[in-house]
C-alpha cells in the first residue's frame, strides 16, 4: 500500500510539474491552462487509471451501507491488487500470499458452524439485493441483503441459475452433511480465495455482505437433506 502510494505520488508530482510548464507556455489556450490537469500521456496506464478514479472519476465521498465511503470501496486491498496485476492468474508466490491471507481472514461462529433454515436460504440464494450505491441506494431497512448465489450457480432445479460458477445441484446429497463439509462450505462462502486464489467469487463473509445468520441459512439450502437442492 505504502509502496504503491509513494510511487503514485512521485509520478503525480512529475506530471504536475510538466503540466505547470505546459500551462505557462500555453498562452492563449484557456481550456488547457484553466484546469491544471497532469499530462496524461506522461503516466503509465495504471497510474492514469488510478488518477482518473481518485480525481473526479467517482463520487468518492458518497456514503455506503457498510458505513464507509465509495473511496474505501475503490481502494484495492492486497488480494484485489494481486489478482488485478496477474489478471487472475497469480504466480506461485502470489498464490501462497493470497491463500494465507484469505485463511487468516476467516472468523468462525461461536459454538461451531450450524445449519440454519433452508427455506430462508433459498430466498437469500435467489436475491441480488443489497449494497448497491450511487444513483440509487439499496435501503437495507426495506429488505434483507441477498446472497446473489443464483447469478453464478445452478442450485435448485426449479430456477435457472448462472454458470460462471459450478453447479451446486445435489450438493449436500453428494458431499454429505458432515463437519468437514460444513467447514469447507463455510470457508468458501466466507472467503473463497482460501481455496481458489483469484476466484471471481465474492468474499461474502469477509466483505460483511453476508452476516453469520444468513450464511447459516444459505448453507442449509445447500446441505440440509430436507432442502430441495438434495432431493
Amino acid at each position, binding site marked *: 500500500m505504502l509502496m504503491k502510494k509513494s510511487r503514485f505520488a512521485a509520478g503525480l508530482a512529475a506530471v504536475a510539474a510538466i503540466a505547470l510548464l505546459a500551462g505557462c507556455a500555453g498562452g492563449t489556450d484557456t481550456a488547457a491552462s484553466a484546469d491544471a490537469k497532469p499530462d496524461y500521456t506522461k503516466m503509465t496506464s495504471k497510474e492514469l487509471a488510478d488518477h482518473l478514479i481518485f480525481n*473526479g472519476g467517482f463520487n468518492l465521498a458518497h456514503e455506503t451501507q457498510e458505513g464507509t465511503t465509495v473511496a474505501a470501496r475503490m481502494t484495492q486491498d492486497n488480494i484485489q491488487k494481486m489478482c488485478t496485476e496477474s489478471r487472475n492468474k497469480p504466480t506461485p508466490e502470489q498464490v501462497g500470499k493470497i491463500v494465507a491471507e484469505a485463511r487468516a481472514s476467516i472468523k468462525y461462529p461461536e459454538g461451531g458452524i450450524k445449519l440454519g433454515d433452508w427455506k430462508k436460504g433459498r430466498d437469500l440464494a435467489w436475491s441480488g439485493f443489497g449494497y448497491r450505491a450511487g444513483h440509487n441506494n439499496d435501503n437495507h431497512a426495506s429488505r434483507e441483503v441477498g446472497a446473489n448465489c443464483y447469478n453464478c450457480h445452478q442450485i435448485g432445479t426449479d430456477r435457472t441459475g448462472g454458470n*460462471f460458477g459450478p453447479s451446486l445441484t445435489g450438493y449436500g446429497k453428494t458431499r454429505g452433511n458432515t463437519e468437514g463439509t460444513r467447514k469447507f462450505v463455510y470457508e468458501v462462502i466466507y472467503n473463497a480465495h482460501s481455496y481458489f486464489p483469484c476466484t471471481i467469487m465474492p468474499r461474502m463473509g469477509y466483505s460483511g455482505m453476508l452476516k453469520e445468520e444468513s450464511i447459516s441459512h444459505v448453507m442449509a439450502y445447500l446441505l440440509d437433506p430436507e432442502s430441495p437442492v438434495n432431493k
Partner: protein
Amino acid sequence: MIRKLLVAMPLAAVMVTSAYAEQTPGDVLRGLIDRTQSPYLTQSPQNVQMIDDSPAIWTGYEGGDLFKAPRGPNNVSMESCDFGKGPGVVKGAAVELPRYFADTNKVMDLEGRIVHCMTTVQGFAKDDPAVRTRHGSNSDMMKIMTYIAMESNGMPWNPPLSHPLEVAMRDAGEEMFFRRQGLMDFSCATCHGPDASHKRIRASVMSSSSVPSDWTKSISWPAFRVGQQHARSPQNRVRGCYWQMRTGQIRQDSDAMMAILSYWTDAARGQPAILPDMKR
C-alpha cells in the same frame, strides 16, 4: 455564401440517408447473427423480432428535428457543431467517438460533445433542463444523441488512436476494465472478460470484450431498454455496471468515463454498429 453551403451540404446528406435507406439496425443485427450464430446475439428471439419497431427509432427522428431547429439563447441549430468529422457532419460521427478535440484539449464522447455544442454554440446554461436532463426517451439529450448515433448505423466502429491522449485514455480504460475493486471484488472483466464469453448470469448470456462481433452489440448505445421502456445512453450503461458491481457512482462526463468508453469502443473496432439497438 460558403457558410451557407457548409450548412446545406450535410443537410442534403442527411435527407438522402435518413430512414435507413441502406440497412436498418435489425439488418445489421441479423447480419451479425448469420455470420457468427452467437448464443449471445441470439439469446432473445423477441428482441431480434422487435428491433425493427424499436421506439428508439422515433426518439432519433425527434432528435433530428431538434438538431436542425434554431434553439437556445443564441437561437441557432446544432448544424455548425463539430462531432469530430467537421462542422455539421453527423454521418459516421458516432462510430469515431470518443476522440480528441483540440477546442477543449480533451477526449470526449458523443454525450459530452452534445453538451459542448448546446452550451457553447447554442448558449444554453449548463444547468438548463435541456442540458442537465440526460436520461429518458423524453429528454432532448437522448433524442439528439439517438439521432446522431442512427447516422452511423451499420458502420464499423473506428475510434481514432492518432492523438497521444486517445491512446492514453484507451489504455487507462483497459486498466479500469480489469481492475478488481469494491465489496464484491468485481471488475468489468468479471462478466465481460476473455473467460466470460457466452457464460450466463442467471439466464442472460454474456458478451466478452475479446469477441468483437459480440461486443459491438454490447456497446451499441443508445439502445431501447425493453425493461425500462426508455432509450439509454452509453454513460447510463456504464453507470449501471458500476452500480451492480457495488463500487459507487462513476461520474457523468468524467475522464474516467471517457477512458472506459475509449477502451470499450476500441474493443469493437471493425464491427458494425447497431444504432439504435434494442436490449432487454
